[in-house]
């Protein structure tokens, strides 16, 4: 860093610079003339120096040419060029320059969460929880946020259900409609292809519910239909290429015949 001053060339110039510097911040050598000298009458006494901001703690500085009062009144010493100087704020041991993670013994936690790859989905954190938990809570109105914003109105305590109350829980026999079947649906779990192939030959296939098998068959049919169409199109294209009526084939034969001549 360079303090640019065009007048500071040599020692003689430095003295002139000092005069300008002190002149900027007020000089003790030339105090302002008293108001009586200017013919305004007896002036008011000069105001007392401002009190120190921190009460002047610490040892007393040595007496300076500016006649600073005893005690650590650094702001009063600013009668010279340092009139803006104040006490520094108290220094603390813990600052941003220290590694806060080691200071608070969070290295293990940091390595655990940031060293390894944390999986994105909620089902990886709660694998044993049934249902589709990876979906947003706003889909089925099961968000925790809504529970906090609109807490349900509760009674006072949890009382056991009596016999007469249990009469209201008599259900009809038979399976539930498909719309209400949500408990058995689990998020799809990724499996290795090799393991999956081995399991096909070794383990028996678990019994499927009729609704699931119909759904799978429909999916298979939908997947097969576009594939069948593509295969048919490819076959047609191949047939058309090899037919004598195709312009491309005919032109190529004509060119080959012309070259032989």
């Amino acid at each position, binding site marked *: 860093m360079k303090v640019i001053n065009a007048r*500071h060339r040599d020692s003689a110039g430095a003295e002139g610079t*000092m005069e300008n510097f002190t002149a900027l911040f007020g000089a003790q050598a030339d105090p302002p003339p008293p108001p009586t000298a200017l013919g305004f009458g007896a002036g008011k006494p000069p105001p007392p120096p401002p009190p120190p901001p921190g009460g002047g703690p610490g040892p007393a500085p040595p007496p300076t040419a500016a006649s600073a009062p005893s005690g650590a009144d*650094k702001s009063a*010493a600013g009668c010279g060029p340092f009139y803006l100087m104040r006490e520094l704020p108290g220094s603390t041991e813990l600052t941003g320059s220290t590694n806060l993670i080691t200071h608070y013994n969070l290295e293990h936690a940091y390595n655990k969460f940031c060293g390894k790859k944390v999986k994105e989905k909620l089902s990886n954190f709660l694998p044993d929880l049934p249902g589709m938990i990876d979906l947003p809570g706003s889909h089925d109105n099961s968000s925790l946020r809504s529970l906090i914003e609109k807490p349900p109105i509760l009674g006072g305590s*949890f009382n*056991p259900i009596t016999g007469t109350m249990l009469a209201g829980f008599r259900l009809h026999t038979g399976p*539930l409609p498909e719309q209400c*079947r949500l408990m*058995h649906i689990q998020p799809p779990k990724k499996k290795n292809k090799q393991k999956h192939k081995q399991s096909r030959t070794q383990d028996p296939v678990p019994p499927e519910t009729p609704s699931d098998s119909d759904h799978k068959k429909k999916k298979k049919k939908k997947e097969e239909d576009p594939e069948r169409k593509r295969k048919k199109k490819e076959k047609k294209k191949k047939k058309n290429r090899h037919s004598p009526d195709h312009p491309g084939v005919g032109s190529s034969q004509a060119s080959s015949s012309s070259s032989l001549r």
Partner: protein
Amino acid sequence: MAEKFDHLEEHLEKFVENIRQLGIIVSDFQPSSQAGLNQKLNFIVTGLQDIDKCRQQLHDITVPLEVFEYIDQGRNPQLYTKECLERALAKNEQVKGKIDTMKKFKSLLIQELSKVFPEDMAKYWSIWGEDHPPS
């Protein structure tokens, strides 16, 4: 402290398992399942009572609301912890950089001022004396 979390976790797991079994019973209900259904319903009530008892031991535990946003989005809440640690480390490094830069600037400023204004700097050092903080 980990024990009260273990108790709560245990009660919650039992409660969830109870609800799951109730769902299985209801999905294909038979007349003979009525007794089991009534039993599961009473287990729900006792499970809620047990969870309510655990609440008293955990009244001083605070959970940040941002974690609930992660859960509502179907994301792993450990990602919140990971992002907090990463943000803390990044901010720590940023502040350390600022402190180091300011220290270098101070030492450089004092050095240059001592060259240009030696007398004023001598006054400055005399005023601070032993109170001057280490640079």
